């Protein structure tokens, strides 16, 4: 009898102890991006950056609600389809998750931001917040802006602003060829390139401005011939994935040895595919920088990333800002359940990022204003991409890039 009581007491005590351990609140973030199919690398890399920043910048230092709570990433595979994403959004909401993160493809982001806005209109007491870490269609923070959407990446216009600063500062560039994929993003890049170049260097002639079918071109050689034939001093392209590799290799193979300005001309196998040929030629514009690490904390942070994820690249620095900025907003509110208050706390937040410098979530349109860099491919990079022995090193650094850029956003606040 006594023995039985003792056993019961022990079991009870063990149960209580276990209960205390899980009592630490889990704040779940739904990560909706492609984790299978041809764009899986993008999603996998993004998830790794999130997991790393959640662990290093929030959970381990106990930075969320004084260590009372932790972030937990819950991945959902959207196969880069807008339709699939809406289903996954519903699944995530059914599981009680109210924080949604997505970034690969502006098409998906456009669908999600509409769905989130609609949900929040119908359920004003139970809203959902949408953290966009890399979809760069300018419309998302202009005509289509809404209160519950926050963009942490620099949008296509901001990137073009920094990119054209770099071109404007180079007196050798007199002719520019703009080429891109034939869809909304490719067109946005082309329009922005024309606008900024006209403004900053009216003497530059745009000798080519064309769109090619997206993902359909087998051989870019004829385009490369046109580019070389036009006498261009620089190429600007928003191409990504296979279209970036194909275009880059064909243009360099045709004997073009001048700068190729890209949005996505690195990592995910692209740097390795360009190899030695791309050194000094391939440029990339992006938020923040990896090389050289901008702060000692960043150096440590990125080193630890490569230890945890040796097969992946630290490709999109701004993604590491989402978790700590969200944590700061939650800390300000004091709980992780009042999504509306969290959104208000995030709005206008200033944050000292280890990778993107001083970062401001602009109140007027929920566009993060941060350091944007133009980087060049070189073998002298401390953190390499694709284990290729080469990486991207910042050449032009613009702090608080496009801080004064106008927005057409007319935000309606709840």
């Amino acid at each position, binding site marked *: 009898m006594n023995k039985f009581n003792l056993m019961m007491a022990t079991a009870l005590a063990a149960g209580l102890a276990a209960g205390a351990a899980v009592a630490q609140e889990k704040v779940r973030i739904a990560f909706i991006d492609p984790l299978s*199919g*041809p*764009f*899986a*690398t993008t999603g996998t890399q993004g998830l790794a950056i999130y997991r790393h920043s959640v662990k290093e910048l929030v959970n381990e230092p106990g930075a969320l609600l004084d260590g009372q709570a932790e972030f937990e990433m819950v991945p959902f595979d959207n196969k880069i389809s807008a339709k699939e994403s809406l289903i996954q959004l519903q699944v995530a909401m059914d599981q009680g998750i109210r924080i949604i993160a997505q970034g690969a493809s502006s098409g998906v982001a456009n669908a999600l931001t509409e769905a989130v806005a609609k949900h929040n209109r119908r359920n004003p007491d139970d809203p959902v917040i949408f953290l966009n870490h890399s979809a760069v269609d300018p419309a998302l923070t202009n005509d289509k802006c809404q209160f519950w959407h926050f963009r942490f990446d620099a949008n296509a216009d901001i990137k073009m602003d920094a990119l054209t600063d770099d071109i404007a500062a180079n007196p050798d560039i007199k002719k520019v060829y703009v080429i891109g994929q*034939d869809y909304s993003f490719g067109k946005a890049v082309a329009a922005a390139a024309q606008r900024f170049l006209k403004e900053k260097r009216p003497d530059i002639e745009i000798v080519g401005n*064309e*769109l*090619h*079918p997206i*993902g*359909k*071109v*087998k*051989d870019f*050689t*004829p*385009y490369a*011939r*046109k580019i*070389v*034939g036009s006498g261009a001093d620089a190429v600007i392209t928003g191409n990504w994935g*296979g279209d970036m*590799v*194909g275009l880059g*290799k064909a243009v360099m*193979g*045709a*004997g073009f040895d001048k700068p190729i300005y890209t949005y996505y001309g690195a990592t*995910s*196998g*692209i740097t*390795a*595919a360009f*190899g030695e040929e791309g050194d000094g030629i391939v440029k990339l514009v992006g938020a923040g920088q990896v090389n050289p690490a901008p702060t000692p904390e960043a150096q440590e942070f990125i080193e630890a990333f490569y230890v945890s994820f040796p097969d992946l690249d630290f490709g999109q620095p701004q993604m590491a800002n989402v978790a700590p900025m969200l944590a700061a907003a939650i800390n300000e509110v004091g709980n992780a359940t009042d999504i509306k208050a969290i959104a208000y706390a995030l709005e206008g937040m200033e944050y000292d990022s280890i990778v993107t410098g001083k970062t401001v979530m602009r109140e007027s349109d929920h566009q993060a204003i941060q350091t944007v860099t133009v980087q060049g491919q070189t073998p002298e990079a401390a953190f390499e991409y*694709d284990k*290729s022995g080469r990486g991207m090193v910042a050449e032009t650094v613009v702090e608080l890039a496009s801080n004064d850029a106008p927005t057409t956003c007319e935000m309606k606040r709840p």
Partner: protein
Amino acid sequence: MALFLVNVLDGFVTGLLLFMLCSGLTLIFSMMGVLNFAHASFYMLGAYFAYQISLVTGFWAGLLIAPLIVGVIGALIERYGLRRVHKYGHVPELIFTFGLALLIEETVQFFWGKSQLPFSEPAALDFAAFAIAGNAFPAYKVFMIAVAMGIFLTLLYILTKTRIGMTIQAALSYPETVQNLGHNVPLVFMCVFGVGTAMAGLAGVIAGPVLGVFPGMALQLGSIVFVTIVIGGLGSLWGALVASLIIGWLQTFATAYDITAEQVLTAIGFTKPELIWDHPLQDLWTLTLPQLGPILPYLLMIIVLVLRPQGLMGNRES
């Protein structure tokens, strides 16, 4: 004029590459009546195997060994897969090869991942052979032309001038008679399938450094290969060559010249509407030839099918 010449050469290379793929496919079709949907997947396998081998031994060993491995795999698939399905008719065969294509794509992603692989041309050929008005023509493309021409001539010789070729051609029309004469027709079929897939593999090896090695490479070429053999005439080697070259040039020249619909329409006598951005015919007016390029082969296929259903050089009545 200089640019024209460069485009002629580029189109020639594209066409020959296409031919290396189509020759195997059309050969297999003429022998076995099988439309092999997995043909482009063997092309992809060739590129991936060559990449893997090149990590150890360099490019040249990969060029020789990878097509051999692909050929053996192809022969085994014919022997133990396709031949069993064959007796149930053509539809199960089609479904079999279709499933095979999906299987190969998934397998490749399983082993090599989804990213582009850094497969580049050998250092010995990594220079510009010559330049026309500032446009470099890589030595590697000269090499591609040489390999493709070599294959065409060898195939032509074997098929028309040797005993093996005669047996193959006879087995094509009268398999029972050839069998009765003591030839091992199933073995001939297996060899043709093996050689056909090996050639697809070889095409993959030499195309890999130029067009990139990634899991979508089979899909990218899959449909155009069928278009080519339909235009050329199913089963005709010469037809495959002619159609490949036509498509190679068609695509290259369509991309190279920025002829716009606006120029054409104004030349015919139409006037461009003032407010083009709100006009219902906006898409028509802003169309350019490079945008049309990718659909031209399909357009050509439809025209050929209407005017000459057996293809340019095909001689089949049915």
